């Protein structure tokens, strides 16, 4: 849940408190219910939001922004090297980037810092063979499916916080065991039928 910028709800009475009115700092309290609020302010609090528009270009002396021909270049994109005006400069993870590089980086999945969600394919794939143990008749279908999905999703980016793929490996091992079981079952059936 995201609150309105610059406000927090009082945890006790739910009143919306304006942080600007709590500027004195330290331990203050809600005016309605007197519930104490501890606030740590940081230097960024005193900095207004950046509203750069880019300076006008002086022809013959300045380099121009790649995206705005009439604006003076203030920085260069760290990825593509294009000159950028104050309006186009994006400070991304401590580096200067242009919007098009960020866009293409996000599309190609090269910038993990831009990921706002990821699907946990390894956990998803592991559930299939485990669930099929309970509903064993579906093993005929789920075991090959598990192997297929393991291969298909192997290189897809998983969780940001675990680099290993042991869930994929475990799913594949269980699926292989299930396939062996199916093969043994069919073999036994055929053998019994012939006798």
């Amino acid at each position, binding site marked *: 849940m*995201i609150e309105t910028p610059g406000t*927090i709800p009082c945890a006790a009475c739910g009143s919306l408190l304006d942080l600007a*009115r709590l500027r004195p700092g330290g331990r203050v309290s809600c*005016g309605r219910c007197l519930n104490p609020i501890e606030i740590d302010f*940081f230097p960024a609090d005193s900095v207004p939001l950046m509203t750069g528009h880019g300076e006008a270009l002086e022809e013959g002396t300045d380099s121009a922004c790649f995206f705005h021909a009439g604006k003076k270049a203030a920085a260069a994109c760290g990825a593509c090297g294009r000159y950028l005006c104050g309006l186009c400069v994006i400070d991304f993870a*401590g580096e200067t980037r242009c919007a098009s590089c960020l866009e293409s980086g996000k599309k190609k999945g090269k910038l993990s810092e831009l990921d*706002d969600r990821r699907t*946990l394919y390894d956990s998803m794939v592991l559930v299939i063979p485990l669930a099929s143990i309970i509903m064993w008749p579906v093993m005929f279908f789920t075991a090959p499916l598990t192997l297929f999905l393991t291969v298909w999703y192997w290189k897809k980016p998983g969780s940001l916080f675990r*680099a290993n793929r042991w869930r994929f490996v475990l799913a594949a091992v269980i699926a292989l065991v299930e396939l062996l079981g199916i093969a043994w079952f069919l073999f036994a059936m055929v053998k019994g039928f012939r006798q």
Partner: protein
Amino acid sequence: MSAPLQYRRLARVRGTFSGIHSLWLAETHLIAVRQIFYTEHYRRFYFHDIQAITVQETRTRFHLALAWAIGGGLFALLLGGLIALSSGMAGAIAFAVVALLTGLALLINQLLGPTVVLHLVTAVQSTPLPTVRRRRHADKLRRAIHSKIMLAQRDLVLASPPLAAVESAPPAVAPEPAPLQDSEFLP
């Protein structure tokens, strides 16, 4: 491809109605994770963007204690009635176990300390962190990130007025800030 970031878990995984939450620390930011089924949703808070951290105590600990006491009490009454009717040993043991578990839950709830809600405030959002629910977790988080925030915002600190000017200026921190009046609340 950029190098994979190193994350350290700051708060243990916590399940709520809205998903499974966890909090991780990287070199330049905090990342709050909400997992719903097989999808992780990330929200990053870069240290140079954080304007404030607010911590407020809640009444959740009291409500939890109340729930345990009422629930345990009712169950004990029920068992006590059954024991009185049957006068069996098994009932007495069950009564003792329930009483012990309820007492233990109440004790743990007390020992974990006051419950709090912690908000991270940036220029564009004020977000509560569901992983931080107890005072000691909030203090641990503040200790872990305070120096990192100050380091990330050191340029802003340097850009602040010189000490002499600050000393001659009227105090920025009021000794006893008056509570807000009703009229000062946002609509």
